[in-house]
């Protein structure tokens, strides 16, 4: 639905920013009383204005948008010719953006640094090149190298186990009872020194057809908050949701996890769960 009076509709942005003359303002106000289309458009404009006013520095930056700078640093072909020209012109005159670009390039180099292969792989590769010269077919050369080196691998390298990422984990299954607290359940978590995270998951007796908003805090035995997070979780088909906790914040000891399930429309705590657990370091 559009307004038939285009001249008035075009004044709405300036009605919102209160820069119209008294006469124009009066005309707009009179028109709004009888035009639902313009009233709706005014509401959209005011909502939009209120939203963008919350992030002036990010949205109206005088510098290159961070997203564009990242793309410029690593995939310029994704930028339009116009955007590329604008960014390059800006970079010529802005030392702050140039520094950020340089930092991005250093980070990218650091991320792309090749990982060193294992000692066994390097020896096998060098030996294969050497033997390749002796055998007519490269495949035979590799097989020969592996057969020669296999006993060495067993003797020297067997002790090194490659480890897939694993997580110390507790699952609290509350589907069999109405308990909000997991006291009495097996709640000891063993964290290795190499672990960066451990996880706590909960299978709860609620309908798993939506997300829940939660507010979680972990207290130590002095009731001091050690870690807290809030957010939204999607439940899987069993009503399970998950918290990932950084291991570096925890020492050996007793902790209490408090989870508040938030009812968003009412903006209040709908349900509180208490989960004591202990951390053992290995």
């Amino acid at each position, binding site marked *: 639905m559009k307004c038939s009076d285009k001249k008035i509709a075009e004044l709405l942005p300036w009605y919102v920013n209160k820069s119209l003359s008294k006469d124009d303002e009066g005309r707009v106000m009179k028109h709004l009383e009888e035009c639902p289309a313009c009233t709706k458009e005014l509401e959209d404009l005011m909502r939009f204005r209120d939203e963008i006013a919350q992030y002036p520095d*990010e949205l109206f930056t005088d510098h290159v948008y961070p997203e564009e700078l990242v793309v410029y640093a690593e995939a310029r072909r994704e930028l339009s010719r116009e955007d590329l020209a604008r960014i390059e012109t800006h970079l010529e005159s802005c030392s702050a953006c140039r520094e950020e670009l340089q*930092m991005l390039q250093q980070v990218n180099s650091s991320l792309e640094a090749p990982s060193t292969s294992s000692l066994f792989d390097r020896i096998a590769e060098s030996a294969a090149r050497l033997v390749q010269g002796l055998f007519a077919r490269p495949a035979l050369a590799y097989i020969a190298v592996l057969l020669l080196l296999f006993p060495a691998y067993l003797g020297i390298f067997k002790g090194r186990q490659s480890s897939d990422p694993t997580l110390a984990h507790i699952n609290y299954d509350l589907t069999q009872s109405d308990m909000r607290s997991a006291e009495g359940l097996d709640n000891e978590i063993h964290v290795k020194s190499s672990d960066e995270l451990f996880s706590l998951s909960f299978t709860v007796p609620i309908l798993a057809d939506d997300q829940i*908003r939660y507010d979680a805090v972990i207290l130590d035995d002095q009731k001091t908050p050690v870690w807290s997070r809030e957010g939204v979780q999607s439940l899987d088909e069993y009503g399970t949701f998950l918290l990932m906790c950084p291991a570096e914040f925890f020492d050996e000891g007793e902790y209490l996890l408090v989870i508040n399930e938030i009812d968003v429309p009412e903006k209040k705590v709908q349900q509180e769960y208490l989960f004591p657990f202990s951390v053992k370091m290995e």
Partner: protein
Amino acid sequence: MPTMNRKDSEIIAGYIKGNAREYFIINQWITAVVENKYWGLQQQWADIIQEVRMKLFVNFKREQFRFSSSLKTYVYRVTKYTCIDYLRKKNRTDEVSIEKVEIKSQEDSFESLIRIEQKEILRQIFLKLKERCRQILKMVFLQNRSYKEVCLALNVAEGTVKSRVSRCIQDAIELRKDFIK
């Protein structure tokens, strides 16, 4: 349109559901960027990582992942521009009073995901708008300039300014409606 590879789609699906394995994979990618020595943002690592996790959650739910790059590249990019945001904030807030910092920390915590979602939507709208349109929105809604002042700034006739501004704002609001759907 290029399609997402199966592994990436499985990681996204698992991440949205909160599966430990997918969460761990993505967390590794985020951490690799954030804890890079070049940023100098050690005190904000935990906040940055959590903000990136939330942005990814929001963008995955809205299917904003662009299939032209791998998921890992996408996660890296979101993390990098978030780090740049924090660098800029750090430079700007050196003069912010302690009082303002305290007020922010008392913000109702469960609204932070809503704020991040809103900011992400607006950023993606502004990225899609032309530079001229962003300038217009800044003059009208941030600087509260009258249409005569905008005419002078853009060096165009009054009638042209009004229709150009109207068109620009309509583009932005239509983009916003597309994101909200």
